[in-house]
């Protein structure tokens, strides 16, 4: 059911596939460093031993998105999913690793060519309130970028914006209004129209429906699916809502504290989650079966990304943690067609790990 999704999601990627991926990230990392201020530097001269604070928001993640594919990115707060989305779209520069667009390394391209590729990637933000300039009319919010990039002449703006608004289900006669005159769902549509106005091929949707009510969320998700078909779009769909991701995506990547813990085709991953963290997440997914549930929570808190646990980041909360998990981080390995998981339970059975190996084999 998922022909495009089977391509190996290469961390090692031995041979390049015939068709280059639309977007590819190879071993990208993003570190945010809080450099020492003067007081700390002076303090250090006196032996205070203040150190720079480094957050590994994204830690050596590889991601491959085929043309027309929808890849879902799931995780809890602080897992680096938004940072990865911004890296993919080019809003942040990776600290390490490289970005490829249709098989070309973006860093190698001339600035003009890179900008052209960059325009093919757009982002739709989470907060439909904060991401629209309150002092700009919809006409300018949506029409500014296509004019600046020479896609349309300035005199075509009104007509062009009208078409864009129509496409996302907004009345073009409202284009002279300001964002505050719209409801949350309408603002989400403006955000989508703005991203689509420069004719992108790849969209990063960062929690784009999280702020919306259930009935409006359904409308916007339907719009995403219609647009994908009509315009042949490729999505990276970031959400903490597993139900939404399951519905929308071909492939899913699960992140925890900056690392990918599991990825695979959506139906398989949801049917047979391999990593204990994925299992825990899926166990918490609300179901609408009207049955009293006994909530069996994962213990512990999400650790601070400033000071992540050693070894596997999940081990303090993992019901199956072994001594090994504390010492070394498990590599992300292939556990089935198109499926990867980073867990020591996937490794060759050890004494006491027999159950894990069995489970993964399916």
């Amino acid at each position: 059911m998922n022909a495009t999704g089977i391509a190996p999601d290469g961390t090692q990627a031995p041979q390049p596939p015939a068709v280059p991926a639309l977007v590819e990230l190879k071993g990208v990392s993003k570190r945010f460093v809080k450099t020492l201020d003067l007081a700390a530097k002076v303090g250090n001269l006196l032996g205070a031993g203040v150190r720079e604070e480094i957050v590994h928001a994204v830690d050596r993640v590889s991601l491959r998105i085929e043309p027309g594919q929808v890849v879902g990115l799931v995780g809890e707060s602080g897992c680096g999913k938004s940072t990865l989305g911004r890296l993919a779209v080019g809003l942040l520069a990776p600290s390490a690793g490289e970005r490829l667009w249709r098989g070309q390394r973006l860093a190698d391209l001339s600035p003009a060519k890179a900008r052209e590729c960059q325009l093919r990637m757009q982002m739709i933000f989470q907060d439909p309130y904060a991401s629209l300039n309150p002092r700009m009319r919809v006409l300018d919010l949506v029409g500014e970028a296509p004019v600046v990039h020479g896609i349309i002449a300035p005199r075509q703006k009104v007509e062009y914006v009208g078409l864009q608004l129509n496409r996302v289900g907004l009345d073009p006669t409202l284009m002279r209004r300001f964002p505050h005159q719209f409801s949350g769902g309408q603002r989400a549509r403006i955000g989508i129209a703005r991203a689509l106005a420069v004719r992108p091929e790849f969209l990063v949707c960062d929690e784009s429906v999280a702020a919306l009510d259930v009935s409006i969320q359904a409308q916007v998700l339907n719009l995403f699916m219609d647009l994908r078909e009509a315009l042949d779009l490729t999505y990276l769909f970031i959400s903490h809502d597993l139900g939404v991701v399951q519905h929308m995506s071909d492939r899913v990547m699960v992140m925890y504290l900056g690392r990918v813990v599991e990825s695979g085709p959506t139906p398989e991953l949801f049917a047979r989650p391999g990593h204990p963290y994925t299992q825990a997440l899926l166990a918490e997914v609300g179901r609408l079966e009207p049955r009293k549930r006994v909530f069996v929570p994962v213990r512990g808190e999400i650790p601070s990304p400033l000071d992540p646990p050693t070894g596997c980041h999940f081990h303090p909360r993992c019901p199956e943690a072994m001594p090994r998990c504390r010492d070394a981080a498990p590599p992300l390995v292939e556990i089935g067609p198109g499926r990867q998981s980073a867990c020591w339970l996937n490794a060759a059975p050890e004494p006491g790990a027999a159950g894990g190996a069995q489970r993964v084999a399916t």
Partner: protein
Amino acid sequence: MSVVGAAGPAVCAGVAPAPVLEVSGLRTHFFTKAGVVKAVDDVSFTLARGEVLGLVGESGSGKSITGYSIIGLVDPPGRVVGGSIRLHGRELTGLPAEEMRQIRGNRVAMIFQDPMMTLNPVLRIDRQMTEAVLAHEAVGKRAALARAREALVAVGIASPDERLRAYPHQFSGGMRQRVAIAIALMNRPDVIIADEPTTALDVTIQGQILFEMQKLARETGTALVWITHDLSVIAGLADRVCVMYAGRVVESGSCGELLSRPAHPYTRGLLDSVPSRNPRRARLKQIPGMTPPLIDLPAGCAFRERCSRAIGRCAEAPGITRYPGPVPARVVRCHAPLVPIDGAA
């Protein structure tokens, strides 16, 4: 932990025990310059001991204002203009401010979506928690501190002694919410109103909080009003559900009945628009249009513009229809309900 009476209430029993909280015909209106906003317009429900009532609705449906009205926290220009709220038979509307203050935080407590609305950022947790006891009871500081410690243990906070001496900023979001819940529990209230307490939390942390709340309701007999927009939380937690739309309860009934056989087209629409109820990659069934502004609501059913079953009669406001069956009965406010009134099980 010490609980109020060990005998758990028969939550699912057919015979309804005397209600702890009875809300009937509640109306809370906001008198703004632009006009009267009928945020809550004729809301009724009852709550038995140990019962969990889910109050579901989208933004602007009046679910939070219903909660605020019960605990007496509606600020001007808002005002409770009608109906009654009875706690153990005692009328709360129109109570003098001082008497209401004695009840608030004592017999009825509230948990907010953002725990920092409950917690004072510049006071230590111990001070904030004991304050809640000392405000209502003549007990010593040491006894109050012991109670605070006990409440922290009850909500699953490890090393409570250390935590009592910490400030709110030293806690994570999930921990703060636990502290807020612990404060709500301090005086062993009869009713806790929880306003979207897990919405801002991560999935795994939400699971932990739901687990604690479910346990507490069962063990202490505290009745819960759980306000949320998330039907999947309600599905696993609530005994009864009230669905609100544009300030009115459009349907209420037992959680099982309501989710498996919704009677109101809006409930049905809400359930159908949840992605997991639709085949993967298929178009979601959506409710067309959007919630009407509450200012100058048109006469008649507020949902009729978006309703696929709307008929001519919907131009006049539908009353509440009761289904035959055990009390508290299932009710619907619709001229053309999806479940026929006579044949209801």
